[in-house]
């Protein structure tokens, strides 16, 4: 139940890191190729990392021809993150991926570095649902004015699960010049500062929708992962921690198992929902929704 967050690992450049995951989530794929944003793209702040990568990807044609066959050979189930600027773009991408051996389609409704399509969540999920039988996960930004409402809308439109959360918008200035450090000025904040934000999003979405949730945001240790599970996550994804520690998947997995055992849970997923005062069943874990992953915790 340890995944990577979309955009935080290139499985083809670092296949050993990808093989240590229970599912690999691709960088967001769009209809046309994207170069991404100009440098400078990253900056560390006191409380986390800012990025403005801008969804560089080869476009769906080259992704299907070149990258996907090699990703599928790695072993872990492949979740493909898809993004676009209109519902029909998402539907087009999902239709083309429907015929592949991809395990899950993650609808990126949340990248803070492109035009925000949050208000189209219902339209996008509905359009995607119409063209594929594959499990659909909606990935949402934590900065939505009403995240529970968007989560509920995605669920009502046919989403099988939620991925929570993407980064939150932030800005860092060069202390000498007082000018923005990133080429695009503001960017997405990840790392420790995102931890309580992610917990709140997972907590509320679990209560509102009951859907399986891939929780992510600032996870560095098994204890952090267990907190997300307690809030309602049924899997945990690693982002910024992978940059400092490519060995994080195996480490966090064993720390999570040890932490759950220390607290008397019968495996990490037994702690799901513990923050709500009642322990939920594990029947709706995303691995089982995907139908392809054995639990490896």
């Amino acid at each position, binding site marked *: 139940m340890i995944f990577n967050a979309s*955009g*935080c*690992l*290139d499985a083809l*450049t*670092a296949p*050993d*890191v990808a093989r240590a995951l229970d599912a690999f989530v691709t*960088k967001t794929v769009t209809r046309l190729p994207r*170069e*991404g944003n*100009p*440098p*400078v*793209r*990253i*900056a*560390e702040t006191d409380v*986390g*990392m800012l*990025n403005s*990568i801008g969804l*560089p990807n080869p476009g769906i044609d080259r992704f299907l021809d070149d990258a996907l066959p090699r990703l599928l050979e790695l072993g872990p189930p492949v979740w493909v993150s898809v993004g676009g600027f209109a519902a029909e773009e998402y539907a087009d991408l999902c239709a083309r991926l429907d015929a592949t051996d991809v395990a899950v389609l993650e609808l990126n409704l949340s990248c803070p570095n492109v035009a925000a399509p949050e208000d189209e969540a219902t339209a996008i999920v509905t359009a995607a649902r119409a063209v594929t039988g594959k499990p659909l996960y909606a990935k949402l930004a934590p900065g939505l004015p009403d995240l529970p409402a968007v989560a509920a809308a995605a669920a009502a439109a046919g989403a099988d699960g939620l991925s929570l959360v993407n980064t939150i918008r932030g800005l860092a200035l060069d202390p000498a010049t007082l000018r923005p450090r990133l080429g695009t000025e503001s960017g997405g904040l990840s*790392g*420790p500062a995102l931890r309580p934000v992610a917990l709140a999003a997972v907590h509320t979405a679990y209560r509102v929708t009951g859907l399986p949730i891939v929780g992510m945001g600032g996870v560095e240790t098994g204890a952090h992962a267990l907190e997300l599970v307690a809030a309602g996550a049924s899997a945990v994804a690693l982002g*910024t921690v*992978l*940059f*400092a*520690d*490519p*060995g994080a998947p195996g*480490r966090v997995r064993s720390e999570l198992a040890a932490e759950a055992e220390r607290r008397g849970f019968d495996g990490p997923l037994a702690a799901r929902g513990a923050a709500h005062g009642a322990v939920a069943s594990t029947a709706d874990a995303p691995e089982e929704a995907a139908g392809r992953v054995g639990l490896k915790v």
Partner: protein
Amino acid sequence: MSPSRLRVLGVEPVGPYALVRLARGGLDPGIPGQFFMLRPPGLLLPRPMSLCLAPPGELAFLVDPIGPGTRALAELEAGEEVDALGPLGNGFDLEVARPLLVGGGIGIAPLPYLSERLGGPPALLGFRTARHAEAAALVPSAEVVLEPAYVTEALEPGFDVLACGPEPMLRAVRRLAPEAQLSWEAPMACGYGACYGCVVELEGRLARLCVEGPVLGGRVRGQAPAVAGKAAAA
């Protein structure tokens, strides 16, 4: 692939810079020009540092303490521990007939190890001040140029140039020696291709410097970037 925790043997001042000496552990020093991601305690992200010297049992890095990350590295004390991942990236091609090392400022960092591996070839090093130029002592046979003079004014034709330094210096070197091997820098969060943070424009596209560099150019590796990223994140 996990970082190794290396013990700090000591930190020595070299002019305004700091030579951070780590116990090598099981790590391979790699090829000159390759780099390691170093993360001192308390930092979220590691910093990319070219290997400066590889004495037996040690890895040593020359650090310019200009920001929170590099200061944290320069202020390490013997006995503390640092996470290190590497060697990473592509180093210099050592199969050259008439090597000349060219460095500027903190960009001389990979040259001491490169000089050792090439048997002490001539070197041309440029610095802002005499104090900065104290670092030239790390490179045998080095000719030192101080501002307002530039290394490019002393660069003679007929050599296989291997250079590392500030971006304007690298561009000037490339104009005089189009086949020079140039070591570039860019902010990196991961050093192994995951973050897409370190892109530079290379042959009309944005390429990850950690995967395709940091050494570019020469007869083997194609063109140097048209636009390199800014100096590595401090």
